[in-house]
């Protein structure tokens, strides 16, 4: 899919995703080695966006499995369309048992869920398994089979093997430790907050109307906040929100009043706001 690491950066940038060298390298490797990519990092640094961007580059279909507590095989893999099966049975009452039985477990009554969808078919696909850490441990076992061999066994149909491997991205916020076995099957990428230079470019890209000097100040203030010991430090998504807010407020430069009034966009806890106020000397002004 890609020719070099630089090619990855360039083409991700075309889709509006500015990647750090670490991200570009790992995506390149995941593509070359054909391994799933496990992406961890704080919320709002673009883990999910990365999968979307790769899908866009490859012209691939993005298949998303959103994990949550209680997601199970029938939600992740496939299930049988019971209602339709019942209809089929009652429609053919005078059939022999054999005819009816073989019929209702065919493709027609299969409801493929994300994992099966990603394996079947010949088109290019990107499989995004979002917030893997939210799913129960049993689901991880299921993922192991799918991700190592790219095959799924449906007892009534037999084993379905991928003819074309999807590009797989798993994301995790590390609320729960993923199993060692799952980690072993993946390339590991930790996306952290971008450095100032990269974040400035991201802000300029996402909010082009914002004045360049102001964008620089925005990034610097956010950087200072991240260096503080806060409960929830602002992430890139919040930086962009803040930039948009400033634009909407019509601010051309940062000053105490503007920062104090809009700090809530960046910080989500009252103690954090207080801490930031003290540190940035907002209250003494």
């Amino acid at each position: 899919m890609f020719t070099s690491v630089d090619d990855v950066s360039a083409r991700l940038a075309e889709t509006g995703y500015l990647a750090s060298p670490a991200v570009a390298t790992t995506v390149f490797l995941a593509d070359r080695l054909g391994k799933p990519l496990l992406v961890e990092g704080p919320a709002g640094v673009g883990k999910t966006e990365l999968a979307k961007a790769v899908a866009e580059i490859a012209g691939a279909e993005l298949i998303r499995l959103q994990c949550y507590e209680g997601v199970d095989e029938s939600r992740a893999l496939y299930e049988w369309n019971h209602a339709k099966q019942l209809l089929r049975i009652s429609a053919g009452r005078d059939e022999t048992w054999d005819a009816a039985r073989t019929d209702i477990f065919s493709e027609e009554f299969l409801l493929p869920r994300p994992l099966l969808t990603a394996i079947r078919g010949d088109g290019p696909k990107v499989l995004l398994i979002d917030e893997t850490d939210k799913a129960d441990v049993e689901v991880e076992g299921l993922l192991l089979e799918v991700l190592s061999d790219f095959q799924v066994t449906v007892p009534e149909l037999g084993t379905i093997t991928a003819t074309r491997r999807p590009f797989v991205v798993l994301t995790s916020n590390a609320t729960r430790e993923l199993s060692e076995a799952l980690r072993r099957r993946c390339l590991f990428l930790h996306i952290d907050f971008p450095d100032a230079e990269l974040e400035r470019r991201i802000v300029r890209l996402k909010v082009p109307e914002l004045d360049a000097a102001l964008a620089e100040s925005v990034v610097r203030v956010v950087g200072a906040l991240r260096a503080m010991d806060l409960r929830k430090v602002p992430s890139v998504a919040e930086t962009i929100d803040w930039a948009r807010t400033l634009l909407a407020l019509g601010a051309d430069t940062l000053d105490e009043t503007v920062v104090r009034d809009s700090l809530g966009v960046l910080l989500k806890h009252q103690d954090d706001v207080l801490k930031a106020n003290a540190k940035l000397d907002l209250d003494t002004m």
Partner: protein
Amino acid sequence: MNPPSAHAGSGADVAERLTGLVGALRSHGVRIGTGETVDAAQAVAVLGFADRESLREGLAATLLHGTGQRPVFDPVFDLYFPRGVGGPGTGPAERDELRDRLAAALAANDQALMARLAAEAVDGFGGYGSSPGSDGWSSYQTLDRIRPQTLLARVRASLREGGGEAGFADRLLDDEIRRRIEEFRRLVGAEARRRVAERRGRDEIARRAVAPTADRVDFLLAGRTQLAELRRTVQPLARRLATRLAARRRKAARGSIDLRRTVRASLSTGGVPMRPVLRKRRPARPELVLLCDVSGSVAGFSDFTMLLVQALHDQFSKVRVFAFVNRVDEVTGLLVHGAADAEGLGARIRAEATLTGWHGSSDYGMALGEFTERYADAVGPRTTVFVLGDARTNMSDPNLPAVRQLAERARRVYWLNPEGRSQWGTGDSAAPAYAELVEMRECRNARQLGALITRLLPV
């Protein structure tokens, strides 16, 4: 899969470096299987050596499985894949001239230039000794001569001058420059380590000079910055603990099949057991009592105890927490639901609870005796008791009968000791005596703590 060992002519050398790197990482507790090493070799083949940072990321992606391992990986990588052996070819630079260039690099925040200057600085000012056997490279000496921290004012001035407007963000300038200087110091450290490694053999240095990951830092030895880092490690631990306990409790809620009642219920359907009747579990209310030593000798440990206590408090409905030094006092009321501020809590406890009598050193005998007397009602047959402390009695009576009484009355008693097992019984430690009465476990770092807590906690 065929590992591209014949890559780039010097395949054997690469393979050796790679296995050396893997070996060093393993010796630091990073678990790496052969499969990963093969992946790493493939990554090397795909990426080549042209871009060192890219190679670093590629190896990290294939070899590591978690974020916590990165601080170990980076220095080890620097040792095995050095930035151009020998450093740039310029001779030892003049001190002032180097400082000038460093100031410029700091002002421009040019990372690559800073790295080059770090190499040059170690080259020019870090060497010591003259005889071939005893010489080496010192980051301390380098930093002492270069004094990057004194460049702050200069860098600030040059940035102010060039930047023009003095806006709001300018008040952040000092902190930013300080962070850049800190980064330069780190680079100097890495460079000096690398040079020493060249002299003394990489494997040796890789094993010794790299700091352990946060979850393996000894509670009792942790320094201030390490403590902050450890706190960041323990907090997700609490979250993880919460999810795991919730899952375990959910599972426990589904009981086994009650055959008698299933058969009886099946009478209405003509003997066909349509609905299995499950034996209902009485929702056991886990009662937890924590007895924490908060004396100065275990200060590092007790901060984590506090974090843990907070996490448990959020998880369990019935937790009572008692703190002691040589007197015991209940501190449950000082815990706030949802707060996660260990330092604040520790300070609050020390300020508001009566924990010391005539002297300030811990006395387990007194404290335990007072506990069994004053708070006899806190412990019953359904209570699990955790005692957190090093069992150092300062030569006073360990009061074993009190512990025996505690063990008899409670469902289980666990003692978590932040000292290594080899230390138990040395000096004034009464650990072996206590360990005979209650189950004592070594709990020296966040990793052990996490493993223990999930195993020992009642559902």
